[in-house]
């Protein structure tokens, strides 16, 4: 019994020893690298940033590792994509974070989707027969520069609220980002302008905001339904459709198996283009921030359009 009393005492000591963490720069944790990049643009050196999911990782399929609990434990602000993108992994992490500040609904829990223009909000009855549908709309909304701008502005306001002394600094950083983004948008719009209305196919419904921005026309998906892997019958139908519509481009994300898109490409003569769905989402090319993300995607896509002989 003595032994157990001792072990119990040891546990009790461990449990109760409260190590008070020192407060330094504002620690901002974002669930994705895109949101981290936008926070960095606005927060500059007044904040320390970190993110959970990597840009080359499927943001639906993240494992709730305990190492993420440690990041959340120290966070002064948590920025999430929302719209149930992180529903499969974030709730238990927040629950275990032992951080009252970042609990859903708390002051330091920032849902970036509240600032964004959201597409594909289902109306009427939805069921899982439709695949992995997001009842609150498509969560891949960060892929339009206008939404990036709005999110950055939302983060700026939140940071100013948390740290009023630095409000002018954040406002100035935001204005600078806004200007750089506007300049870049002119460039991207000009590069993409010749391809407005081009018919394309994408793997997952990750690009509605992107294609809306540049006027591309998605005529089909490699997935028969969101989150459901390609089936032979759907692939056959898609191939027929693509031949009929003369679709020359298939956009895929780096985390999907390229076998089926490649086979479709061989059959239809379409180019398979792997775009970066997020900051940090391209192999071998540095896509280090939000503006570089669009630089990379626009450049890659325009090259593919040219190679495929579109217009």
């Amino acid at each position, binding site marked *: 019994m003595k032994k157990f009393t001792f072990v119990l005492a040891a546990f009790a000591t461990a449990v109760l020893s409260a190590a008070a963490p020192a407060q330094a720069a504002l620690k901002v944790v974002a669930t994705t690298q895109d949101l981290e990049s936008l926070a960095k643009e606005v927060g500059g050196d007044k904040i320390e940033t970190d993110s959970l999911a990597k840009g*080359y990782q499927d943001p639906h399929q993240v494992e709730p590792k305990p190492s993420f609990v440690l990041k959340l434990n120290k966070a002064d602000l948590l920025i999430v994509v929302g719209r149930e993108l992180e529903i499969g992994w974030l709730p238990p992490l927040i629950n275990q974070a032992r951080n009252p500040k970042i609990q859903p609904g708390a002051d330091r829990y920032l849902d970036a989707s509240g600032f964004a223009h959201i597409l594909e909000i289902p109306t009427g009855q939805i069921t899982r027969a439709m695949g992995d549908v997001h009842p609150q709309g498509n969560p891949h909304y960060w892929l339009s520069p206008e939404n990036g701008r709005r999110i950055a502005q939302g983060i700026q306001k939140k940071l100013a609220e948390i740290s009023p002394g630095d409000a002018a600094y954040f406002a100035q950083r935001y204005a600078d980002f806004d200007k750089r983004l506007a300049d870049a948008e002119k460039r991207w719009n000009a590069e993409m302008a010749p391809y407005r209305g081009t018919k394309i196919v994408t793997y997952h419904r990750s690009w509605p905001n992107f294609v809306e921005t540049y006027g591309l026309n998605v005529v089909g998906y490699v997935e028969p339904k969101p989150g459901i892997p390609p089936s032979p019958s759907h692939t056959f139908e898609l191939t027929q459709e693509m031949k009929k519509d003369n679709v020359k481009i298939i956009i895929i994300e780096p985390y999907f198996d390229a076998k089926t898109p490649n086979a479709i490409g061989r059959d239809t003569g379409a180019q398979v283009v792997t775009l970066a769905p997020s900051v940090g989402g391209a192999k071998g090319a540095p896509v280090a921030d939000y503006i570089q993300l669009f630089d990379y995607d626009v450049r890659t896509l325009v090259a593919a359009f040219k190679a495929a002989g579109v217009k």
Partner: protein
Amino acid sequence: MLHAVRVSCTGMLVLAFVALAAAPARAQDPQAELKAQIELLRQQLDALQQKVAALEAAGGQRPAAAEAPATPPAGATPPAAGTPPQAPPPAGVQVPEGAAGAGGPTGPLPVYGNTSALSKIFNPDMAVIGNFIGAAGKNDVAPIPALRLNEAEMSFQAIVDPYARADFFLSASPEGLEVEEGFLTFPTLPGGLLMKVGKMKAQFGKVNTMHAHVLPWVDAPLPMTNLLGGDEGLNDSGISVSKLILNPVLFLEATGEIYNGDNGVFASHKRGNLTYVGRLRGYRDVTESTNLDVGTSFAYGHNDAGPDATTRLFGIDATFRYRPLQEALYKKALVRAEMFWSRRDLLAPGAEAKAFGAYVSADYQLTRRLFGGARYDFSDRAIDPALRDKSGSLLLTYWPSEFSQVRGQLRRTRYAEGATANEILFQFLFSIGAHGAHVF
């Protein structure tokens, strides 16, 4: 019908104007701001025009049905995404292509769905998981039925108030309905503590904390059955407190728990006969794709051999995981081992039964939907450690989607009495309702 749509469109426009008027001006030049706002408004108007055109087209095809008594929404009805098209055509279950969003730049999150959805807002997340198990082959020692809906687990989970959340798991099985777990979690306590109160699975090792539907096997390994009190395991009413021990090297979590003392292993003779459980868990990412998770646990409490007889349990667990981030959909491997020691006072004074059990299990993802696995497990029996059962299994699991799975398990068990059982177990697991996330 169309009238109703127009009214709601007008409502949305009015709301959009109000939202824009309320939106604080950007630090940029007001001219550009105005332009951006007009552009946004134009986009919304285009989307609405398309929607109205689509509805008019649909209405033209079904004059009688579509012109059914339209109930113009009163001004009080929130216009956001309200009034879904009534009598949706068969294609209505499809996500509309590029449906215009309702979220303004600074507005609150819009509410989706209809009035019945509104009435569900504060209902907990609900799900039901069916666990259907079948068995073939010969087992004279511990046979299970040939076909049986082993369990329907119902979960109800919600945030209680700004300070707590609650999780209920009710298990309906051929034995009856019981509260498998029902507890309150306080995630916002001071001092970095996480507290749970209620009936719950004790934090003893790994397999004891898992619900049947997250196990990588159809059955539970032998140490669970022989040493931890069967499928239910250490599951009791009590209080659990855990804390992160912050350090630069690894994730370290200490948990201390006190239970009432009545469960599969322990028996409480009087109020003071509580069960104590402690656990220390360490975790570290080895690389981006691999990690190591180790833990040690102990449990102490009285047993049913006599008023002063106690049982002490010790456990060690280790898990190695591999899942490359970029190929997370297709590649995954996990190797896990757990060892259990049981020290149980017997009826005779001074007599003690020392039993040991362990299992090693490996899972490997073969393709996006197919998983293979193997397990070797053995265990002494808690009361008579001279009897040791041994078993080996091979598994194949197929996932049609993340909400259902089909599993087959080839199992050979050699019971201590000398009997050998060769069996095929199979399982259908299916889940409806809210998309629950599991603790890692």
